[in-house]
């Protein structure tokens, strides 16, 4: 249906498009959605395991930041990381708009918002690279370094995969692999990208605010 004067939610717009006509696709989509949500849950637990390790090590350390070579390690610089976080959260917002535009069949706007998302994602990764270069701790030198680099590294790896994934999605969307009613890949990409944001909220709190 063409865009209505009253705003209709993307979900209803799409649901109206295929559920009656193509129940097999509807079911396939639900199956993939369940599978993808379960995948995100297991990924969440992976992060939780390392977060548990960090909390355990930090709580049982006699002093934090720990002392290495006779000197106490410095706290992390919250302001730079806060800026980088805004970049990442911003990319979550842009991804949301990208998907909404796709649902409303606005391919051009979709492309713009998707590119914005990818750019902001790369920006975040560059920010992390900068953070790694200025931070005065090593991976192997202390439990602070161990937890910080392992957790943010795992997260950064997820962001990197996400950037690649979104790029591939953009290429496929423009090749016509996805239609106005069949675009599960875009939904999965959006969910994954939001997941990466949520994990970062936790990590930012754990390393920069706590």
């Amino acid at each position: 249906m063409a865009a209505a004067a009253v705003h209709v939610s993307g979900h209803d717009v799409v649901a109206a498009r295929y559920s009656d006509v193509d129940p097999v696709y509807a079911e396939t989509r639900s199956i993939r959605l369940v599978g993808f949500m379960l995948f995100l849950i297991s990924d969440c637990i992976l992060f939780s395991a390392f977060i548990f390790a960090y909390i355990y090590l930090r709580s049982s350390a006699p002093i934090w930041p720990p002392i290495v070579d006779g000197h106490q390690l410095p706290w992390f610089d919250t302001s730079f990381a806060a800026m980088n976080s805004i970049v990442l959260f911003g990319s979550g917002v842009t991804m949301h708009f990208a998907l909404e535009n796709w649902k409303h069949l606005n391919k051009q706007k979709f492309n713009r918002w998707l590119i914005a998302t990818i750019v902001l994602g790369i920006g975040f990764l560059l920010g992390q690279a900068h953070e790694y270069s200025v931070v005065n701790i090593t991976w192997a030198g202390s439990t602070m370094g161990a937890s910080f680099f392992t957790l943010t590294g795992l997260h950064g790896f997820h962001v990197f995969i996400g950037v690649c994934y979104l790029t591939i999605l953009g290429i496929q969307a423009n090749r016509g692999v996805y239609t106005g009613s069949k675009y599960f890949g875009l939904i999965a990409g959006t969910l994954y990208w939001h997941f990466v944001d949520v994990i970062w909220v936790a990590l930012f709190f754990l390393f920069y605010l706590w």
Partner: protein
Amino acid sequence: MHAATSTTHEVHDVHDHIHPPPEGFVRKYVFSLDHKVIGFQYFFTGLLIMLIAGSFAELVRLQLTDPKGAIMSNTAYNEMFSMHGTAMVWLVLIPLVTGALGNFVMPLQIGARDVAFPWLNMVSFWIVPIAAILLFSSMLWGGPHAGWTEYPPVSLLDGTAGALWCAAIFTVGISSTMTGLNFMTTIIMMRAPGMTWTRMPLFVWATFATALMNMMATVALSAAVGALFLQHVFHVPFFDPARGGSPVLYEHMFWFYSHPAVYIFIIPAFGVISEVISTFARKPIFGYKMIAFSSMAIAILSFTVWAHHMFPSGLAPWLQLPFMILTYAIGIPTGIKIFSWVATLWGGRIYFSTAMLYALGFLITFTFGGITGIFLASVPVDLHAHGTTFIVAHFHYVVAGGSLMGFLAAIPYWYPKATGRLMSERLGHIGFWLFFIGLNGTFMPMHWLGLEGMPRRYATYEYFAKAFPDAQFWNQFETGFSFLMAASIGLLVFNVVWSIKHGKVAGINPWGARTLEWTIDSPPPYYNFKKIPDVFDRPYDFDQPMPYRNTDNVVAPYPEYGAVVMAQPAGAGA
């Protein structure tokens, strides 16, 4: 006009669409997407590795026939028991009970054409041989030495072998997680129309509970061995006390997975027992809802008891209490199941097929192992028993006498469906008695040896033989009986191979069982069901007609095989 939700099943002709069959040897047998073929692949891989890991166990047993160590150095012995445990846990048990059984049976039992993500299923299988190569290649560098648990700091002395061990476990963990995710989605989303949760076969409930644990717990193991790998290769100090790390942290991360892992071993076996006992007693499983509910309760509780493996190991004292209480608690749903199965036997009409013999043996040995688990749940008693052969006895009773026995029951039960032939009942019966007697002879003395003072993972036991002069006799006794178990497995392999050509033709329902897999051809066509059946009742009412519509075949509700048995006096095998 809000459309119907995606769970609508009204348009049957769309579901009955069958894809064209795969072509070519590679698509059919190597990189197959068919859950049945993948099940076979897991089965043969698991069985092959079981033979290797079992041989390592026999070497361990031979070593212990002499308190000074009969056949090898301490280093070699340490490598043997470590490889035995590691391979058995991750490359044998989990692939066999989840990968082989779950894959072959579960989609058939829910009336599906395949699992939710067949390509993911194929990848999940192929990861297992890769992990096996990684693990066995570690032996070129001496192999792991610190047991299947490989605690740091001592495991860090394993060098390259230790890093390879971590890589192997991390790799196989990916397979488990993906399989769990796949099975959960399949069971939630792809059951045949009319199969509500309370009309599912109990093996499907078991597969669901197992998949939940697989999916949620394995990633914690990946984190633990991942961190250990980082310490091996990059010296990242998660577990190094000199730089603020903690060896106890590894234990927490490792056991958070490894306790649910033991329930991953056993719950599919519970599912098999439910199917087998019901079928061969010709009556409904007693307490269906409680058995289903208790499987889920065990799956959830399994995440809360891990530190009972760590009572003497560095836990804060106050932490021991909740873990002790929860470990006792998890015994209740397990006990309910045992009692329900025994009650299922009452008033039945019992056929002593090979599968049923294993199920009956299971009830005896698993109960015994479960009770010794209750002993260990108590912190004070565990402080004595931890690290001794009492623990080895406990877990072999529940794993070999529970999980493996359940799997040994599953093989003759579903082999006819998978191959179209019955296995030899005579060989099966002999194999059962060898296994049952061998198991008890091998592991029973370990209980008192352990409590008397014999630790586990001891390459030699001269100190203990001085204090306890019978020690050598009992160890030799155990070694002797272990060969009965080995013979049983050898016989099993022979039976599996021999019966493909020489077994009696099975027909579609030799056991007169009532779950959906018994309504289609043996072996099933690649598409399983020509038309997806409709389910209108629960599966275990043997006095009723089969509760399905649109099934491929009309099936008699009593065993064709029973007609053969009836010609002989009661209790005889084939």
